[in-house]
């Protein structure tokens, strides 16, 4: 029997090794990220304090003027041009094309877009907390798992706190569970079968942990005669087997799913539409498979898991259609209740390639992207970021190291190469990525 002393030594060794590995895994980004985030918050706090004070004084007219007054001159830098400021005007609501046209042969550049398109996914009706709790404690008739995995059989299952065993185990004895935890994404309402009433589309995992999800469409069970007061539901069907996905939303009686190539290597994305044919869900539009020569589709960038924050433009989920994000109502988690309805983030030049990184994982590709943040329609910050799957990591911002403008960029020789304007001339700066941060390479 192992003594407590031995246990302690072994644990100390295990923790020491863990600490050593953690030092390689978690790297501090530049302190500039900290300074800017703190600065932006201070500014916001100051602005909101002023506005609140004015409102409290009851001077409605004065308050209105404050809202329409541009910030002090110091805050307008770096303005790209002397464009006149005007209060933001809501753009027309334009239908989003179901599948965007192929990427342009030449890289898109800021300012080349003249349409603002709203993102349908922003209008999705998500399940609320009460419904989620109900679902996580429901009895559900589950159809066969879409990949046909024998460890995830069809049948009637009663979930407790989002979990129910399938009865199967993996090769080392770990029990398989159906998991409805809503950690990666929430469920939504959608009418997909044409009958009155909405269905619910929920991500469901099957395994000993949440690794791979599939999308299940649920209907309320009309024969809800269960004795234990648990909510009865029927699985109408799964969306056909998906390698991975991020967002999903209803469109034109179908369900659009943004399909990713792999749960842990989300470098490429496709939009596919699925519909109900009376017996099952089938693909009705979009590609049926991911091609072998995967390319990251950076026209739609999902920053939900990003470490990146664009100061006043915030962070969170951004999606781009035709290079323009539309008006994204970003809710700052640090300041609940505050939104930035007039903020736009424009997608500029895109460079595709593969950066050399000490990653253990095969990657299909990276992209460098120019992002221009425009709170209230005015250019505020210009960044070059690396995008790979759902993550965006800053490479350079105008203002860093004296850069006054970003001219162009590309990925070459495994490095990010950015042509900048600094000290009144163009310079080529190269950056190496370690997967978390970029470091400028001398020379």
């Amino acid at each position, binding site marked *: 029997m192992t003594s407590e002393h031995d246990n302690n030594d072994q644990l100390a060794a295990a923790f020491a090794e*863990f600490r050593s*590995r953690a030092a390689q895994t*978690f*790297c501090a980004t530049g302190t*500039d990220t900290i300074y*800017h985030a*703190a600065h932006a918050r201070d500014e916001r706090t100051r602005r909101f304090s002023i506005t609140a004070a004015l409102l409290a004084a009851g001077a409605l007219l004065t308050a209105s003027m404050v809202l329409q007054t541009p910030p002090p001159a110091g805050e307008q830098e770096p303005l790209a041009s002397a464009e006149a400021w005007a209060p933001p005007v809501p753009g027309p609501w334009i239908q989003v094309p179901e599948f965007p046209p192929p990427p342009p042969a030449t890289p898109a550049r800021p300012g080349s877009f003249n349409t603002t398109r709203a993102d349908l996914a922003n209008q999705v009706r998500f399940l609320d907390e009460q419904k989620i709790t109900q679902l996580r404690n429901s009895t559900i008739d589950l159809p066969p798992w879409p990949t046909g995995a024998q460890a995830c059989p069809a049948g009637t299952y009663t979930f407790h706190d989002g*979990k129910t065993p399938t009865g199967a185990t993996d090769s080392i004895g770990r029990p398989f569970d159906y998991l409805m935890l809503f950690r990666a994404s929430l469920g939504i309402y959608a009418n997909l079968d044409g009958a009155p009433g909405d269905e619910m589309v929920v991500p469901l995992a099957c395994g000993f942990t949440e690794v791979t999800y599939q999308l299940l469409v649920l209907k309320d069970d009309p024969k809800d005669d269960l004795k234990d007061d648990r909510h009865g539901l029927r699985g109408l069907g799964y969306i056909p087997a998906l390698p991975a996905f991020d967002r999903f939303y209803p469109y034109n009686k179908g369900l659009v799913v943004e399909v990713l190539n792999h749960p842990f290597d989300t470098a490429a994305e496709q939009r596919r539409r699925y519909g109900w044919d009376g017996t099952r869900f089938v693909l009705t539009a979009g590609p049926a498979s991911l091609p072998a020569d995967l390319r990251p589709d950076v026209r739609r960038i999902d920053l939900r898991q990003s470490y990146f924050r664009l100061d006043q433009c915030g962070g969170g989920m951004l999606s781009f259609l035709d290079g323009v994000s539309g008006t994204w109502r970003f809710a700052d988690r640090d300041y609940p209740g505050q939104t930035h309805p007039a903020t736009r983030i424009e997608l500029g030049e895109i460079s595709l390639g593969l950066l050399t990184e000490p990653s253990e994982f095969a990657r299909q590709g990276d992209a460098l992207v120019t992002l221009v943040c425009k709170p209230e329609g005015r250019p505020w910050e210009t960044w070059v970021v690396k995008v790979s799957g759902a993550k965006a990591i800053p490479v350079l911002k105008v203002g860093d190291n004296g850069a006054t403008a970003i001219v162009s960029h590309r990925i070459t020789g495994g490095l990010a190469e950015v042509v900048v304007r600094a000290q009144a001339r163009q310079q080529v700066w190269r950056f190496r990525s370690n997967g978390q941060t970029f470091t400028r390479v001398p020379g």
Partner: protein
Amino acid sequence: MGMDATAIALPEGHVSLEWDFATLYQARFSDLAAQLYAFTGDALETQDLVQEAFIRAWQRWDRIGRYDDPGAWVRRAAWNLAITRHKRLKIFRRVPEHDPPPASGPESGPEAGLNRMDLVASLRKLPEQIRRAVVLHYLADMPIADIAAEMRAAEGTIKSWLRRGRAELAIHLAGYRDGGR
């Protein structure tokens, strides 16, 4: 020195302290992240929490920078954030306490090297208080008296938690090893 620190208007007094802040940030970031990752099991959340703690420290740096150990303040802030968010998750999302970390399979994701050791999975099986005590002891190298002060518990309680944590971790880790991993 932060590249942008000179490009923005810093509160008075920040510039002279910037070097110390940057040193603290670089020196403590990964250690603190290791602690919080061991506690939360979520790499992305960990990165956010640590970053958030440093942002708050910088906002108060004219005061915190004068402390004997500003790192202790940052550590406490990060842990408080982690515990607050953990509680919120439990309340609003009914996250099962002992589930494995989300979106990070044992063999995938940026933290795969850490997960392979099964230490995080084993820690997740411990009750929250015990897990916190174990992490503070083994990863923050804090003596029992300091852990007791930080967790507002008696030293005897901390000792008991550590004893129980060690015993349970030994069982869990042995279970993983015996499972052929």
